């Protein structure tokens, strides 16, 4: 077990009921945290408590259950906003990062992006920060270009600056890459983009769960992340936007809750953030998200980060000596988040994942929703081991052991 001065992993592990489970008779070693994380008992309890004690639709009912549910829902909004240094009024609950980027595409993009405008994304983006901009470019007649990467897997700042000279309307990029692990310098990029007159949208799906993030100092216009990747339930995430932008944008989905008044030929909109929360929201999801943020706040995000850096260092030591092991992304662990994408000899990632699964080790294999990046790296797939608060050195040892087994089977 990891004897970290920062996080008591054994205590943390006891909070996650799933970690008691066996897979193929082996201890579950869950290293697929970048896809989704496991949930502590406190998050599960928050859901059970909600459904067993005060489940109700929010914002609509004056009865006690309705008031309690509304309070808890709005309280979670305040918690999540505070967790990243944002205001509750700027914090829109959505299904996840993907819905957030699409919301911006429809409600901001379709209104402000004009024919011939330039949209800039990067080659390290997740599909959720590419496909909406392709669709927007198509519908508005705009042009989409990509910031290139350095050989080390960082954003090529020369390429970015070249594109900024073309005065883009929008610059879309990830705070952390879900494959390379690269931590991008959000504050600098946003400052440059703003000087170039561009609006910025930052994909925080892999940063907020793993690093201390203070939006007040980053300067992004829009910032998105998902609850399920940070101990929260599935089906909930947030889009945080500058208030003025949210107010000026068109609505996204139309329906209950987002309206002020409905007439036969037109309607008027509710205040932000409600203007973007049409229909019955994922009340339980939001409440569970609040509980997840409480859990992480108790641990402390600086400690979470430090814990992951230790695991990364340990994993590099343990794995890079394996013959045929090749990792992607920056080598300096200070520049990357707690995941390692790699390939191992000619063992295809799917085959490796199957062999590891038999040892109880869950990793992700495939293109990681980053096909443009896969083409940059000239691979069709990679393995990815991604760490979180409950992972230990033992987990890394189990991973190494499984890879060695695959090496034996494949006669590497």
């Amino acid at each position, binding site marked *: 077990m990891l004897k970290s001065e920062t996080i008591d992993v054994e205590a943390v592990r006891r909070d996650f009921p799933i970690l008691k489970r066996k897979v193929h008779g082996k201890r579950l070693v869950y290293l697929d945290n970048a896809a989704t994380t496991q949930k502590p008992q406190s998050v599960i309890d928050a859901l059970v408590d909600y459904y067993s004690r005060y489940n109700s639709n929010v914002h*609509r009912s004056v009865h006690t259950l309705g008031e309690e549910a509304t309070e808890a829902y709005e309280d979670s909004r305040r918690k999540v906003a505070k967790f990243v240094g944002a205001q509750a009024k700027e914090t829109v609950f959505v299904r996840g990062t993907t819905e957030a980027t699409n919301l911006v595409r429809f409600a901001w993009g379709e209104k402000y992006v004009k024919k011939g405008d330039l949209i800039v994304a990067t080659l390290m983006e997740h599909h959720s920060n590419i496909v909406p901009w392709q669709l927007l470019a198509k519908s508005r007649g705009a042009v989409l270009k990509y910031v290139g990467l350095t050989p080390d897997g960082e954003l090529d700042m020369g390429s970015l600056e070249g594109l900024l000279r073309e005065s883009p309307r929008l610059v879309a990029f990830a705070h952390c890459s879900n494959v390379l692990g690269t931590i991008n310098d959000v504050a600098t990029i946003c400052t440059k983009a703003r000087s170039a007159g561009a609006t910025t949208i930052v994909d925080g799906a892999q940063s907020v769960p793993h690093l201390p993030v203070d939006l007040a100092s980053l300067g992004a216009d829009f910032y998105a992340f998902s609850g399920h990747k940070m101990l929260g339930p599935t089906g909930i995430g947030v889009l945080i936007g500058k208030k003025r932008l949210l107010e000026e944008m068109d609505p996204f989905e139309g329906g209950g809750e987002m309206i002020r*008044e409905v007439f036969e030929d037109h309607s008027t909109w509710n205040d932000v953030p409600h203007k973007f929360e049409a229909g019955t929201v994922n009340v339980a999801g939001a409440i569970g998200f609040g509980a997840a943020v409480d859990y992480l706040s108790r641990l402390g995000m600086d400690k979470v980060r430090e814990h992951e850096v230790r695991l990364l260092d340990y994993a590099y030591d343990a794995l890079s000596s394996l013959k045929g092991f090749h990792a992607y992304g920056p080598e300096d662990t200070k520049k990357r988040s707690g995941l390692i994408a790699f390939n191992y000899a000619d063992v295809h990632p799917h085959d490796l994942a199957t062999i590891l699964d038999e040892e109880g080790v869950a990793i992700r294999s495939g293109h990681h929703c980053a096909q443009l990046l896969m083409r940059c790296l000239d691979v069709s797939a990679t393995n990815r081991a991604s760490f979180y608060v409950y992972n230990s050195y033992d987990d890394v040892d189990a991973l190494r052991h499984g890879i060695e087994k695959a090496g034996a089977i494949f006669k590497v």
Partner: protein
Amino acid sequence: MSSADIYRELILDYYRNPRNFGKLEKFDIQAHDTNPLCGDEIEMQIRVGGENTIEEIKFTGKGCAISQASASMLTELAKGKPLEWVRQVAKEDVFKLLGNPDLGPSRVKCALLGMKVLKTGVYGYLGAHYDDPDGSV
């Protein structure tokens, strides 16, 4: 506090016989708002008199006893006061008018709708912007 206490004689009286209900022929300030969550509506009109005082004030609206009574009571309180006074009106003042009932958060919004409309109108007239702290979140 039970609902029998919330709905005291006084509130019911203001609900059924609202004071200052109606429209002004001439006015300097007009403001309107609805509570999107329940549909309650209040509109207020103010004629500004000498030394920037509230010379005349009337309201119309529809909604629950609490929203209509509190709006009506507030117009009574406001009448004759300097416009600047409106800046200092706080929700506690409204609650006091209503007899400090024990209202849940959604009913608090009913109670404060009139104050919100009053402030929005007067702040606008004074060249300021009223940002409702109890607003949407």
